[in-house]
């Protein structure tokens, strides 16, 4: 394996920049390091990828978890490089590739907007496309625009195999452009961003499983894999009659079973042993802090990342049933989206029957939303303080679920890590 001199110099400079950033207390430093590297060697990604990128994973929701499941499965073949922190833009990808053993297989999470660029540079074997929905509209592309960019990307990369969620019409529209597609029935609970056909604008017709367009004839493609979800447990079922029990997955909810089913389809394409793959996926307990149980102040929390309506729609099912109270932390920093109007698209009505503790910088927006949803709530700036006026039921819980937007989630995670140090 011979890397270009330019790339090697860039890696060294990037690592130095990362370390400096870490010492300065500015987080993991991956983004900074990656930027330095790309500046010094713009083709470093292609040089570092060098035919070893097995899969890229992209989606609005679940890409970090899916990547982790897939990377765990891939370790049956030896060491795997993958980002532990969800660094998924170009700079994060280049740092991840530079960090691991130079010949190790790479499984990478990629931001939706950066996928075309990273695909062109890394030439992956497989691309997994999970779902597309509204997310931080004030800084991201429109959903339909992203799908069109993915189409162009797949037309330009005919050798790649795509594993795509057939239940998301927008993803289907993007993926149908590929030469080789494995369709997976992963489910779609949030349909508001795919109400109309992305091609012709006709309102899509749906029943429990199928969807079709009366305008242009598009319909849900025939699937190779399906998630069967029954009483809180999933099974990945293949057209050829194979059934893989996913009930031992430790990542909770239908959504993660769907992520695992998509990952199984990728494993099949990569020639992995599927039973072994599922076994390894079931060993994943928490992904970059998601679903981790941590102590913050006087409270023991289970951390849930909830950053958009589609994610929320899935997450409510993962919470313990009412009347168990939950904490919801809403911020509106740049990474959360400055505009929390999306709170009105979340079906908070489904939290009725319990008390919601509204926290985060935008707790007052949340309180007004909960008021309109008829959900009992208290507004508390720091619900983790020993003397916080928590409802009695919250104090009685061993662990309370805390759903948080991106920066609120990371504040909690950092605080828990800091407080855990002796």
């Amino acid at each position, binding site marked *: 394996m011979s890397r270009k001199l330019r790339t090697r110099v860039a890696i060294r400079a990037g690592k130095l920049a990362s370390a400096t950033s870490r010492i300065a207390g500015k987080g993991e430093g991956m983004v900074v390091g990656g930027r330095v590297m790309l500046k010094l060697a713009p083709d470093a990604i292609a040089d570092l990828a060098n035919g070893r990128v097995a899969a890229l994973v992209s989606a609005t929701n679940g890409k970090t978890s899916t990547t982790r499941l897939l990377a765990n499965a891939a370790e049956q073949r030896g060491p795997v490089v993958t980002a532990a922190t969800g660094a998924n833009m170009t700079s994060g990808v280049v740092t991840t590739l530079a960090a691991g053993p130079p010949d190790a297989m790479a499984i990478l999470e990629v931001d939706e907007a950066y996928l075309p660029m990273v695909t062109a540079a890394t030439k992956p074997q497989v691309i997994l496309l999970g779902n597309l929905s509204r997310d931080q509209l*004030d800084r991201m592309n429109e959903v339909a625009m992203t799908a069109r960019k993915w189409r162009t990307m797949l037309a330009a990369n005919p050798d790649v195999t795509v594993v795509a969620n057939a239940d998301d019409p927008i993803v289907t529209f993007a993926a149908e452009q590929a030469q080789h597609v494995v369709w997976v029935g992963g489910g779609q609970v949030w349909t508001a961003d795919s109400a*109309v056909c992305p091609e012709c604008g006709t309102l899509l017709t749906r029943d429990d499983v199928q969807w079709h367009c009366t305008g242009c004839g598009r319909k849900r493609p025939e699937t190779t894999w399906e998630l069967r979800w029954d009483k809180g447990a999933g099974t990945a079922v293949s057209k050829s009659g194979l059934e893989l029990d996913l009930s031992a997955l430790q990542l909770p909810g239908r959504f993660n079973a769907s992520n695992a089913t998509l990952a199984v389809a990728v494993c099949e394409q990569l020639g992995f042993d599927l039973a072994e793959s599922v076994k390894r996926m079931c060993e994943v307990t928490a992904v970059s802090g998601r679903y981790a149980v941590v102590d913050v102040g006087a409270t023991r929390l289970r951390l849930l990342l909830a950053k958009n309506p589609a994610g929320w729609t899935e997450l409510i099912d993962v919470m313990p049933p009412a009347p168990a109270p939950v904490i919801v932390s809403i911020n509106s920093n740049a990474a959360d989206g400055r505009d929390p109007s999306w709170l009105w698209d979340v079906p908070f009505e489904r939290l009725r029957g319990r008390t919601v503790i509204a926290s985060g910088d935008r707790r*007052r927006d949340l309180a*007004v939303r909960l008021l309109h949803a008829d959900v009992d709530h208290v507004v508390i700036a720091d619900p983790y303080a020993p003397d916080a006026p928590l409802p009695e039921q919250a104090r009685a819980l061993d662990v309370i679920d805390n759903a948080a937007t991106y920066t609120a989630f990371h504040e909690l995670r950092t605080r828990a890590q800091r407080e855990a140090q002796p």
Partner: protein
Amino acid sequence: MSDSVIRIVSIYPSLLGTYGDGGNVLALSHRARMHGLTTEVAEISPGQAVPRHGDLYVLGGGEDTAQVAAADALRADRGLAQAISNGASLLAICAGYQLIGEEFPDATGTPSPGVGILDIRTDRLPKRAVGELLATPSPNAPAKLTEPLTGYENHAGATHLGPDALPLAQVESGVGNGDVSEGAISGRVVGTYLHGPCLARNPQLADLLLGWVLDRDLEPLVEREVEELRAERLDYVRRSGR
């Protein structure tokens, strides 16, 4: 209005509902309930006829292609225009605001015909307007609107008012129509760039719309959560710009 039920018609929420616009319908029902009134909400999908006998119509924001599709469908259907000329009220937000005018730019910037309910024309701002929007009701706005209007804007439209439309408000912070005015009002039709959603953050505007349906003014009612949010947003904008 008949049988003392306020008939709210939410137009094409599947096309126009990008910024939590469904919240405006929720806020109308919520305020109505506080005033002891009953509402009934009809959600109209593209392809379905727009009912002629609603009391209060609501149009939200949407992406460029959805906006053109919605305008074409509403022009062909004619139900909305007919309801308005029969005296119904209308709240139109962002893309919905633009499309009830005479023309607005499509995804490529080419002028596209609107529904022609409001005497406004929209072209492009030099730079997209994104951020908090704070505006003071203009002197010609209904006297019931006394409190500042607060919300979030995210649009690229410069909207020009013709002689039959009056500005809803004057911009204190943000962009609005692009000429220091914000929104437009004409008879019982209100258009605005405020989302957030608008009526949850501005209950006076919700009460104005409900009052139009009833032909009377509603008692001012205050909710703590809403006042706290308003105070925080107003303070934030006045301190930090947007």
